[in-house]
Protein backbone atom coordinates (compact mmCIF):
# COMPACT_ATOMS: atom_id res chain seq x y z
CA UNK A 1 0.00 0.00 0.00
CA UNK A 2 3.09 2.19 0.00
CA UNK A 3 2.54 3.80 -3.39
CA UNK A 4 -0.87 4.78 -2.15
CA UNK A 5 0.60 7.22 0.30
CA UNK A 6 1.36 10.28 -1.88
CA UNK A 7 -2.20 10.26 -3.26
CA UNK A 8 -3.59 10.10 0.23
CA UNK A 9 -1.35 12.90 1.38
CA UNK A 10 -2.35 15.04 -1.56
CA UNK A 11 -6.02 14.42 -0.89
CA UNK A 12 -5.59 15.31 2.78
CA UNK A 13 -3.67 18.45 1.94
CA UNK A 14 -6.36 19.51 -0.55
CA UNK A 15 -9.22 18.91 1.84
CA UNK A 16 -7.49 20.86 4.58
CA UNK A 17 -6.91 23.74 2.16
CA UNK A 18 -10.61 23.70 1.26
CA UNK A 19 -11.60 23.51 4.92
CA UNK A 20 -9.42 26.47 5.93
CA UNK A 21 -10.81 28.35 2.95
CA UNK A 22 -14.34 27.73 4.21
CA UNK A 23 -13.35 28.93 7.67
CA UNK A 24 -11.98 32.13 6.17
CA UNK A 25 -15.28 32.67 4.38
CA UNK A 26 -17.21 31.97 7.58
CA UNK A 27 -15.05 34.45 9.46
CA UNK A 28 -15.30 37.15 6.82
CA UNK A 29 -18.98 36.68 6.02
CA UNK A 30 -20.36 38.67 9.00
CA UNK A 31 -17.97 41.57 8.35
CA UNK A 32 -18.71 41.69 4.66
CA UNK A 33 -22.44 41.40 5.17
CA UNK A 34 -22.43 44.16 7.79
CA UNK A 35 -20.52 46.47 5.48
CA UNK A 36 -22.73 45.45 2.56
CA UNK A 37 -26.08 46.08 4.28
CA UNK A 38 -24.80 49.27 5.92
CA UNK A 39 -23.65 50.51 2.51
CA UNK A 40 -26.93 49.60 0.80
CA UNK A 41 -29.19 51.00 3.46
CA UNK A 42 -27.04 53.81 4.80
CA UNK A 43 -25.27 54.92 1.64
CA UNK A 44 -28.20 57.03 0.48
CA UNK A 45 -28.49 59.13 3.64
CA UNK A 46 -24.78 59.38 4.32
CA UNK A 47 -24.24 61.45 1.20
CA UNK A 48 -27.20 63.74 1.81
CA UNK A 49 -26.25 67.35 2.33
CA UNK A 50 -25.91 68.22 6.00
CA UNK A 51 -26.15 64.58 7.14
CA UNK A 52 -22.85 64.95 8.97
CA UNK A 53 -23.79 68.29 10.53
CA UNK A 54 -27.58 68.36 11.15
CA UNK A 55 -29.20 67.17 14.39
CA UNK A 56 -31.05 63.82 14.44
CA UNK A 57 -34.73 63.75 13.46
CA UNK A 58 -37.68 63.46 15.78
CA UNK A 59 -40.04 60.56 15.35
CA UNK A 60 -42.08 61.11 12.19
CA UNK A 61 -44.73 58.90 10.75
CA UNK A 62 -45.43 60.88 7.60
CA UNK A 63 -44.04 59.08 4.55
CA UNK A 64 -42.13 62.08 3.27
CA UNK A 65 -40.52 63.39 6.46
CA UNK A 66 -36.89 64.44 6.25
CA UNK A 67 -34.00 62.22 7.43
CA UNK A 68 -31.66 64.95 8.79
CA UNK A 69 -28.30 64.09 10.43
CA UNK A 70 -25.86 62.84 13.03
CA UNK A 71 -23.78 65.96 13.75
CA UNK A 72 -24.07 65.97 17.56
CA UNK A 73 -23.33 62.26 17.69
CA UNK A 74 -20.09 62.58 15.75
CA UNK A 75 -19.05 65.47 17.94
CA UNK A 76 -20.12 63.64 21.11
CA UNK A 77 -18.18 60.49 20.20
CA UNK A 78 -15.05 62.51 19.50
CA UNK A 79 -15.38 64.33 22.83
CA UNK A 80 -16.12 61.17 24.82
CA UNK A 81 -13.31 59.15 23.28
CA UNK A 82 -10.97 62.14 23.59
CA UNK A 83 -11.78 62.53 27.28
CA UNK A 84 -11.44 58.81 27.83
CA UNK A 85 -8.05 58.77 26.09
CA UNK A 86 -6.82 61.68 28.19
CA UNK A 87 -7.42 59.51 31.23
CA UNK A 88 -6.69 56.05 29.84
CA UNK A 89 -3.43 56.66 27.97
CA UNK A 90 -1.39 58.06 30.89
CA UNK A 91 -2.96 55.74 33.45
CA UNK A 92 -2.63 52.68 31.22
CA UNK A 93 0.93 53.43 30.15
CA UNK A 94 2.10 54.17 33.71
CA UNK A 95 0.40 51.04 35.02
CA UNK A 96 2.11 49.02 32.28
CA UNK A 97 5.48 50.55 33.11
CA UNK A 98 5.00 49.59 36.71
CA UNK A 99 3.89 46.09 35.81
CA UNK A 100 6.75 45.47 33.40
CA UNK A 101 9.67 47.49 34.75
CA UNK A 102 9.05 47.11 38.48
CA UNK A 103 7.78 43.58 38.28
CA UNK A 104 9.75 42.28 41.23
CA UNK A 105 7.51 44.28 43.52
CA UNK A 106 4.14 42.72 44.30
CA UNK A 107 2.23 45.70 42.94
CA UNK A 108 3.64 45.10 39.45
CA UNK A 109 2.21 41.62 39.31
CA UNK A 110 -1.08 42.81 40.81
CA UNK A 111 -1.43 45.34 37.98
CA UNK A 112 -1.04 42.78 35.19
CA UNK A 113 -3.53 40.52 36.91
CA UNK A 114 -6.05 43.33 37.41
CA UNK A 115 -5.72 44.42 33.78
CA UNK A 116 -6.36 40.84 32.67
CA UNK A 117 -9.49 40.58 34.79
CA UNK A 118 -10.75 44.01 33.74
CA UNK A 119 -10.38 43.16 30.05
CA UNK A 120 -12.93 40.42 30.62
CA UNK A 121 -15.48 42.52 32.48
CA UNK A 122 -18.54 43.21 30.28
CA UNK A 123 -18.60 46.85 29.26
CA UNK A 124 -22.12 47.38 30.55
CA UNK A 125 -20.84 46.56 34.03
CA UNK A 126 -18.28 49.33 33.67
CA UNK A 127 -21.07 51.78 32.82
CA UNK A 128 -23.21 50.54 35.70
CA UNK A 129 -20.29 50.88 38.08
CA UNK A 130 -19.57 54.48 37.07
CA UNK A 131 -23.29 55.19 37.27
CA UNK A 132 -23.52 53.64 40.71
CA UNK A 133 -20.62 55.72 41.90
CA UNK A 134 -21.94 59.02 40.58
CA UNK A 135 -25.55 58.50 41.59
CA UNK A 136 -24.56 60.45 44.68
CA UNK A 137 -23.53 63.39 42.52
CA UNK A 138 -26.78 63.89 40.61
CA UNK A 139 -25.56 66.98 38.79
CA UNK A 140 -23.09 64.93 36.74
CA UNK A 141 -24.56 61.43 36.82
CA UNK A 142 -25.55 61.76 33.16
CA UNK A 143 -22.77 63.71 31.51
CA UNK A 144 -19.78 63.78 29.20
CA UNK A 145 -17.58 63.36 32.29
CA UNK A 146 -19.14 60.10 33.47
CA UNK A 147 -19.36 58.89 29.86
CA UNK A 148 -15.66 59.58 29.37
CA UNK A 149 -14.87 57.81 32.65
CA UNK A 150 -16.89 54.77 31.64
CA UNK A 151 -15.09 54.57 28.29
CA UNK A 152 -11.72 55.08 29.96
CA UNK A 153 -12.48 52.11 32.21
CA UNK A 154 -12.74 50.05 29.03
CA UNK A 155 -9.64 51.53 27.48
CA UNK A 156 -7.28 51.35 30.48
CA UNK A 157 -6.89 47.56 30.58
CA UNK A 158 -6.38 47.42 26.81
CA UNK A 159 -3.72 50.14 26.88
CA UNK A 160 -2.10 48.54 29.93
CA UNK A 161 -1.95 45.07 28.46
CA UNK A 162 -0.64 46.06 25.03
CA UNK A 163 1.89 48.52 26.47
CA UNK A 164 3.11 45.85 28.86
CA UNK A 165 3.60 43.45 25.96
CA UNK A 166 5.41 46.13 23.97
CA UNK A 167 7.73 46.92 26.89
CA UNK A 168 8.49 43.26 27.26
CA UNK A 169 9.72 43.00 23.69
CA UNK A 170 12.44 45.55 24.50
CA UNK A 171 15.56 43.45 25.17
CA UNK A 172 16.90 43.55 28.70
CA UNK A 173 20.37 44.41 27.41
CA UNK A 174 19.03 47.87 26.52
CA UNK A 175 17.99 48.47 30.13
CA UNK A 176 21.39 47.28 31.33
CA UNK A 177 23.17 49.52 28.84
CA UNK A 178 21.25 52.53 30.12
CA UNK A 179 21.72 51.75 33.80
CA UNK A 180 25.44 51.04 33.34
CA UNK A 181 25.87 54.56 31.94
CA UNK A 182 24.59 55.95 35.22
CA UNK A 183 21.22 56.90 33.77
CA UNK A 184 18.60 56.75 36.49
CA UNK A 185 16.00 54.01 36.34
CA UNK A 186 13.01 56.27 35.62
CA UNK A 187 14.86 58.21 32.92
CA UNK A 188 16.05 54.99 31.30
CA UNK A 189 12.49 53.66 31.43
CA UNK A 190 10.71 56.71 30.06
CA UNK A 191 13.26 57.97 27.56
CA UNK A 192 14.91 54.81 26.31
CA UNK A 193 12.81 51.72 27.03
CA UNK A 194 9.40 53.34 26.45
CA UNK A 195 10.65 55.04 23.29
CA UNK A 196 11.83 51.70 21.95
CA UNK A 197 8.36 50.30 22.67
CA UNK A 198 6.52 53.24 21.12
CA UNK A 199 5.11 51.53 18.00
CA UNK A 200 3.58 48.83 20.20
CA UNK A 201 2.18 51.39 22.62
CA UNK A 202 0.61 53.34 19.74
CA UNK A 203 -0.98 50.17 18.40
CA UNK A 204 -2.48 49.52 21.83
CA UNK A 205 -3.87 53.03 22.10
CA UNK A 206 -5.34 52.70 18.62
CA UNK A 207 -6.98 49.42 19.56
CA UNK A 208 -8.47 50.97 22.68
CA UNK A 209 -9.74 54.03 20.77
CA UNK A 210 -11.41 51.80 18.16
CA UNK A 211 -13.03 49.72 20.83
CA UNK A 212 -14.24 52.73 22.83
CA UNK A 213 -15.69 54.59 19.87
CA UNK A 214 -18.03 51.69 19.09
CA UNK A 215 -19.26 51.04 22.64
CA UNK A 216 -22.89 51.81 23.50
CA UNK A 217 -23.36 49.78 26.69
CA UNK A 218 -21.14 51.81 29.04
CA UNK A 219 -22.73 55.02 27.80
CA UNK A 220 -26.33 53.97 28.41
CA UNK A 221 -26.41 55.23 31.98
CA UNK A 222 -23.58 57.69 31.82
CA UNK A 223 -23.41 59.88 28.69
CA UNK A 224 -27.09 59.02 28.21
CA UNK A 225 -27.34 60.49 24.72
CA UNK A 226 -28.81 63.71 23.44
CA UNK A 227 -30.31 65.28 20.34
CA UNK A 228 -28.31 68.43 20.82
CA UNK A 229 -24.78 69.53 20.16
CA UNK A 230 -22.37 69.46 23.10
CA UNK A 231 -23.32 71.99 25.74
CA UNK A 232 -21.08 71.32 28.72
CA UNK A 233 -19.07 68.56 30.33
CA UNK A 234 -21.66 68.17 33.06
CA UNK A 235 -24.47 67.65 30.55
CA UNK A 236 -25.66 64.53 28.76
CA UNK A 237 -23.92 64.13 25.43
CA UNK A 238 -24.73 62.40 22.16
CA UNK A 239 -22.71 59.46 20.82
CA UNK A 240 -22.89 57.47 17.58
CA UNK A 241 -23.36 54.04 19.18
CA UNK A 242 -26.15 55.42 21.39
CA UNK A 243 -27.90 56.92 18.37
CA UNK A 244 -27.61 53.64 16.48
CA UNK A 245 -28.93 51.70 19.46
CA UNK A 246 -31.85 54.11 19.85
CA UNK A 247 -32.85 54.51 16.24
CA UNK A 248 -32.32 50.93 15.20
CA UNK A 249 -35.13 50.01 17.58
CA UNK A 250 -37.29 52.91 16.44
CA UNK A 251 -40.51 52.05 14.57
CA UNK A 252 -40.13 55.16 12.40
CA UNK A 253 -38.44 54.68 9.07
CA UNK A 254 -36.73 58.09 9.00
CA UNK A 255 -34.94 57.28 12.26
CA UNK A 256 -34.05 53.80 11.03
CA UNK A 257 -32.48 55.35 7.96
CA UNK A 258 -30.38 57.66 10.14
CA UNK A 259 -29.29 54.63 12.18
CA UNK A 260 -28.03 52.95 9.00
CA UNK A 261 -26.29 56.12 7.89
CA UNK A 262 -24.62 56.42 11.29
CA UNK A 263 -23.57 52.77 11.15
CA UNK A 264 -21.96 53.25 7.77
CA UNK A 265 -20.24 56.41 8.96
CA UNK A 266 -18.88 54.75 12.11
CA UNK A 267 -17.61 51.74 10.14
CA UNK A 268 -15.95 53.93 7.55
CA UNK A 269 -14.42 56.25 10.15
CA UNK A 270 -12.99 53.34 12.16
CA UNK A 271 -11.62 51.77 9.01
CA UNK A 272 -10.00 54.97 7.78
CA UNK A 273 -8.54 55.93 11.16
CA UNK A 274 -7.29 52.38 11.57
CA UNK A 275 -5.56 52.19 8.21
CA UNK A 276 -4.11 55.69 8.49
CA UNK A 277 -2.70 55.19 11.98
CA UNK A 278 -1.33 51.76 11.18
CA UNK A 279 0.49 53.28 8.28
CA UNK A 280 1.90 55.99 10.54
CA UNK A 281 2.85 53.51 13.26
CA UNK A 282 4.55 51.35 10.67
CA UNK A 283 6.53 54.33 9.44
CA UNK A 284 7.45 55.29 13.00
CA UNK A 285 8.63 51.75 13.62
CA UNK A 286 10.71 51.74 10.46
CA UNK A 287 12.17 55.13 11.23
CA UNK A 288 13.20 53.95 14.68
CA UNK A 289 14.59 50.66 13.43
CA UNK A 290 16.74 52.65 11.06
CA UNK A 291 15.02 53.18 7.74
CA UNK A 292 16.70 56.63 8.06
Amino acid at each position, binding site marked *: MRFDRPARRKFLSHSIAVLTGLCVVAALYPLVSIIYSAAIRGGGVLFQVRFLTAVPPNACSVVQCATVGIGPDIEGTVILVGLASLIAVPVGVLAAIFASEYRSRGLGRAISFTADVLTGVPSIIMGAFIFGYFVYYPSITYSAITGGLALSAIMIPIVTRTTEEALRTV*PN*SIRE*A*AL*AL*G*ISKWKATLRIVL*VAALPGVATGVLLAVMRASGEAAPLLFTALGSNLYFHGFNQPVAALPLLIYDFALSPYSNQQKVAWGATLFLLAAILIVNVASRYMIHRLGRQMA*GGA
Partner: protein
Amino acid sequence: MMGAVKLKSEQLTAYYGEKPAIRDISLEFPDRRVTAIIGPSGCGKSTFIRCLNRMHETAPRTRVEGKVLLDGEDIYSEDPVRVRRRIGMVFQKPNPFATMSIYNNVSAALRFNGRHPRDYVDAAVVRSLQQAALWDEVKDRVDTPATSLSGGQQQRLCIARALAANPEVLLMDEPCSALDPLATTKIEELIGQLKKDYTVVIVTHNLQQAARVADYTAFFYLGGLIEFAPTEDLFERPRERLTEQYITGRFG
Protein backbone atom coordinates in the same frame (compact mmCIF):
# COMPACT_ATOMS: atom_id res chain seq x y z
CA MET B 1 55.13 46.50 44.21
CA MET B 2 51.63 47.73 43.45
CA GLY B 3 50.83 51.41 43.26
CA ALA B 4 47.79 53.06 44.80
CA VAL B 5 44.62 50.97 44.93
CA LYS B 6 41.71 52.43 42.97
CA LEU B 7 39.13 49.73 43.45
CA LYS B 8 38.99 46.89 45.91
CA SER B 9 36.57 44.11 46.75
CA GLU B 10 36.41 42.73 50.27
CA GLN B 11 34.93 39.30 50.91
CA LEU B 12 32.50 39.74 48.07
CA THR B 13 29.85 37.07 47.72
CA ALA B 14 27.09 37.36 45.11
CA TYR B 15 23.95 35.28 44.87
CA TYR B 16 21.42 34.36 42.22
CA GLY B 17 18.48 33.36 44.40
CA GLU B 18 19.97 31.33 47.21
CA LYS B 19 22.91 30.08 45.17
CA PRO B 20 26.21 31.96 45.47
CA ALA B 21 27.90 32.42 42.07
CA ILE B 22 31.07 33.91 43.54
CA ARG B 23 32.30 33.39 47.06
CA ASP B 24 34.37 35.53 49.34
CA ILE B 25 36.41 37.38 46.76
CA SER B 26 38.94 39.95 47.95
CA LEU B 27 40.84 41.63 45.17
CA GLU B 28 42.65 44.94 44.69
CA PHE B 29 42.76 46.84 41.42
CA PRO B 30 45.75 49.18 41.16
CA ASP B 31 45.12 52.70 39.94
CA ARG B 32 45.64 53.26 36.22
CA ARG B 33 46.59 49.69 35.53
CA VAL B 34 44.92 46.97 33.52
CA THR B 35 43.77 43.93 35.45
CA ALA B 36 42.59 40.85 33.57
CA ILE B 37 40.23 38.26 34.97
CA ILE B 38 40.53 34.81 33.45
CA GLY B 39 38.93 31.48 34.20
CA PRO B 40 36.76 28.80 32.68
CA SER B 41 33.24 29.53 31.48
CA GLY B 42 30.72 29.83 34.30
CA CYS B 43 33.32 30.49 37.01
CA GLY B 44 31.73 33.84 37.89
CA LYS B 45 33.83 36.40 36.02
CA SER B 46 30.83 38.32 34.69
CA THR B 47 29.05 38.09 38.01
CA PHE B 48 32.09 39.48 39.77
CA ILE B 49 32.62 42.51 37.57
CA ARG B 50 28.89 43.22 37.60
CA CYS B 51 29.22 43.58 41.36
CA LEU B 52 31.92 46.19 40.89
CA ASN B 53 29.49 48.75 39.47
CA ARG B 54 26.35 47.49 41.21
CA MET B 55 24.83 46.01 38.05
CA HIS B 56 24.44 42.59 39.67
CA GLU B 57 21.62 43.84 41.87
CA THR B 58 19.59 45.05 38.86
CA ALA B 59 18.69 41.45 38.00
CA PRO B 60 15.76 39.96 39.92
CA ARG B 61 16.40 37.92 43.09
CA THR B 62 20.06 38.76 43.37
CA ARG B 63 22.05 39.72 46.43
CA VAL B 64 25.56 40.89 47.25
CA GLU B 65 27.47 40.51 50.50
CA GLY B 66 30.78 42.16 51.30
CA LYS B 67 32.24 45.46 50.24
CA VAL B 68 33.55 47.19 47.15
CA LEU B 69 35.73 50.19 47.89
CA LEU B 70 36.24 52.91 45.29
CA ASP B 71 38.95 55.30 46.50
CA GLY B 72 38.37 53.80 49.92
CA GLU B 73 34.61 54.42 50.01
CA ASP B 74 32.16 51.53 49.97
CA ILE B 75 30.09 51.84 46.79
CA TYR B 76 27.36 49.78 48.41
CA SER B 77 26.57 52.61 50.80
CA GLU B 78 26.33 55.14 47.97
CA ASP B 79 23.78 55.96 45.28
CA PRO B 80 24.17 53.24 42.62
CA VAL B 81 23.49 55.75 39.83
CA ARG B 82 26.46 57.89 40.90
CA VAL B 83 28.63 54.80 41.28
CA ARG B 84 27.88 53.73 37.70
CA ARG B 85 28.83 57.14 36.38
CA ARG B 86 32.27 56.67 37.88
CA ILE B 87 32.62 53.02 36.90
CA GLY B 88 31.69 52.38 33.28
CA MET B 89 31.00 49.02 31.70
CA VAL B 90 31.22 47.30 28.33
CA PHE B 91 29.15 44.14 28.07
CA GLN B 92 29.92 40.74 26.63
CA LYS B 93 27.39 41.22 23.80
CA PRO B 94 27.17 44.56 22.00
CA ASN B 95 24.04 46.38 23.19
CA PRO B 96 23.71 49.70 21.37
CA PHE B 97 20.45 51.62 21.75
CA ALA B 98 18.68 50.37 18.64
CA THR B 99 16.36 53.37 18.40
CA MET B 100 19.20 55.88 18.37
CA SER B 101 21.74 57.10 15.85
CA ILE B 102 25.47 56.52 16.28
CA TYR B 103 25.86 60.06 17.58
CA ASN B 104 23.03 59.73 20.07
CA ASN B 105 24.37 56.41 21.33
CA VAL B 106 27.79 57.83 22.09
CA SER B 107 26.39 61.00 23.63
CA ALA B 108 23.69 59.21 25.65
CA ALA B 109 25.36 59.55 29.05
CA LEU B 110 26.11 63.24 28.48
CA ARG B 111 22.63 64.00 27.18
CA PHE B 112 20.70 62.09 29.82
CA ASN B 113 22.86 62.86 32.85
CA GLY B 114 22.91 66.63 32.74
CA ARG B 115 23.17 69.61 30.43
CA HIS B 116 26.24 70.26 28.35
CA PRO B 117 26.89 72.73 25.53
CA ARG B 118 26.52 71.27 22.08
CA ASP B 119 30.17 71.64 21.07
CA TYR B 120 31.29 69.97 24.30
CA VAL B 121 29.11 66.97 23.43
CA ASP B 122 30.29 67.01 19.81
CA ALA B 123 33.91 66.99 20.90
CA ALA B 124 33.30 64.19 23.38
CA VAL B 125 31.61 62.10 20.68
CA VAL B 126 34.49 62.53 18.25
CA ARG B 127 37.13 61.87 20.90
CA SER B 128 35.38 58.74 22.19
CA LEU B 129 34.83 57.35 18.70
CA GLN B 130 38.50 57.97 17.92
CA GLN B 131 39.58 56.25 21.13
CA ALA B 132 37.40 53.27 20.28
CA ALA B 133 38.99 53.07 16.80
CA LEU B 134 35.64 53.61 15.11
CA TRP B 135 35.79 57.24 14.03
CA ASP B 136 37.30 56.65 10.61
CA GLU B 137 34.60 54.19 9.71
CA VAL B 138 31.62 56.27 10.84
CA LYS B 139 32.67 59.92 10.58
CA ASP B 140 30.49 60.42 7.49
CA ARG B 141 27.40 58.83 8.95
CA VAL B 142 27.15 59.55 12.66
CA ASP B 143 23.44 60.30 12.19
CA THR B 144 22.60 56.87 10.79
CA PRO B 145 21.09 54.27 13.13
CA ALA B 146 23.46 52.34 15.36
CA THR B 147 21.89 49.12 14.09
CA SER B 148 23.35 49.76 10.64
CA LEU B 149 26.80 48.90 12.04
CA SER B 150 28.34 45.44 11.96
CA GLY B 151 28.57 43.45 15.19
CA GLY B 152 32.20 44.38 15.75
CA GLN B 153 31.52 48.03 14.99
CA GLN B 154 28.61 47.94 17.43
CA GLN B 155 30.92 46.67 20.16
CA ARG B 156 33.37 49.49 19.50
CA LEU B 157 30.40 51.87 19.57
CA CYS B 158 29.54 50.53 23.03
CA ILE B 159 33.12 51.14 24.12
CA ALA B 160 32.92 54.70 22.79
CA ARG B 161 29.61 55.18 24.60
CA ALA B 162 31.13 54.06 27.90
CA LEU B 163 34.18 56.30 27.40
CA ALA B 164 32.07 59.36 26.58
CA ALA B 165 30.57 59.14 30.06
CA ASN B 166 34.09 59.87 31.31
CA PRO B 167 34.38 57.20 34.00
CA GLU B 168 37.34 56.63 36.30
CA VAL B 169 37.19 52.87 36.05
CA LEU B 170 36.25 50.87 32.97
CA LEU B 171 34.93 47.32 33.31
CA MET B 172 35.04 45.26 30.12
CA ASP B 173 33.39 41.86 29.89
CA GLU B 174 35.04 40.04 27.00
CA PRO B 175 34.92 43.15 24.83
CA CYS B 176 36.61 41.43 21.91
CA SER B 177 34.56 38.25 21.70
CA ALA B 178 32.61 39.71 18.74
CA LEU B 179 35.57 41.31 17.00
CA ASP B 180 37.89 40.26 14.18
CA PRO B 181 41.68 40.19 14.75
CA LEU B 182 42.18 43.67 13.34
CA ALA B 183 39.53 45.28 15.54
CA THR B 184 40.83 43.23 18.46
CA THR B 185 44.28 44.66 17.94
CA LYS B 186 42.79 48.15 17.84
CA ILE B 187 40.93 47.56 21.09
CA GLU B 188 44.04 46.19 22.74
CA GLU B 189 45.95 49.28 21.67
CA LEU B 190 43.10 51.35 23.03
CA ILE B 191 43.33 49.59 26.38
CA GLY B 192 47.03 50.38 26.41
CA GLN B 193 46.16 54.05 25.88
CA LEU B 194 43.32 54.05 28.37
CA LYS B 195 45.42 53.06 31.31
CA LYS B 196 47.05 56.46 31.26
CA ASP B 197 43.78 57.85 32.60
CA TYR B 198 41.61 54.96 33.63
CA THR B 199 41.71 51.89 35.77
CA VAL B 200 40.70 49.01 33.52
CA VAL B 201 39.30 45.61 34.47
CA ILE B 202 38.95 43.21 31.58
CA VAL B 203 37.42 39.76 31.52
CA THR B 204 38.85 37.61 28.79
CA HIS B 205 38.88 34.03 27.58
CA ASN B 206 41.91 34.76 25.50
CA LEU B 207 45.01 34.09 27.56
CA GLN B 208 47.31 35.71 25.00
CA GLN B 209 45.18 38.80 25.23
CA ALA B 210 45.50 38.86 29.01
CA ALA B 211 49.26 38.44 28.63
CA ARG B 212 49.41 41.28 26.10
CA VAL B 213 47.27 43.91 27.76
CA ALA B 214 47.14 43.24 31.47
CA ASP B 215 49.51 44.40 34.18
CA TYR B 216 47.86 42.09 36.69
CA THR B 217 45.83 38.94 36.21
CA ALA B 218 43.36 37.18 38.47
CA PHE B 219 42.41 33.55 37.94
CA PHE B 220 38.91 32.49 38.98
CA TYR B 221 37.68 28.96 39.36
CA LEU B 222 34.24 27.73 40.46
CA GLY B 223 33.24 31.07 41.92
CA GLY B 224 36.45 31.53 43.88
CA LEU B 225 39.61 33.57 43.37
CA ILE B 226 42.48 31.12 42.98
CA GLU B 227 45.38 33.39 42.24
CA PHE B 228 46.13 37.06 41.70
CA ALA B 229 49.55 38.28 40.59
CA PRO B 230 51.38 40.50 38.15
CA THR B 231 50.58 39.04 34.73
CA GLU B 232 54.09 37.87 34.01
CA ASP B 233 54.36 36.03 37.31
CA LEU B 234 50.96 34.42 36.91
CA PHE B 235 51.73 33.10 33.47
CA GLU B 236 55.36 32.15 34.04
CA ARG B 237 55.52 31.21 37.68
CA PRO B 238 51.98 30.30 38.79
CA ARG B 239 51.87 29.50 42.48
CA GLU B 240 48.75 27.35 42.30
CA ARG B 241 48.47 24.00 40.55
CA LEU B 242 44.98 24.93 39.22
CA THR B 243 46.36 28.08 37.62
CA GLU B 244 49.14 26.17 35.99
CA GLN B 245 46.77 23.55 34.65
CA TYR B 246 44.47 26.21 33.26
CA ILE B 247 47.09 28.30 31.52
CA THR B 248 48.78 25.29 30.02
CA GLY B 249 45.47 24.04 28.73
CA ARG B 250 45.58 20.85 30.80
CA PHE B 251 42.28 21.07 32.52
CA GLY B 252 40.55 17.98 33.90
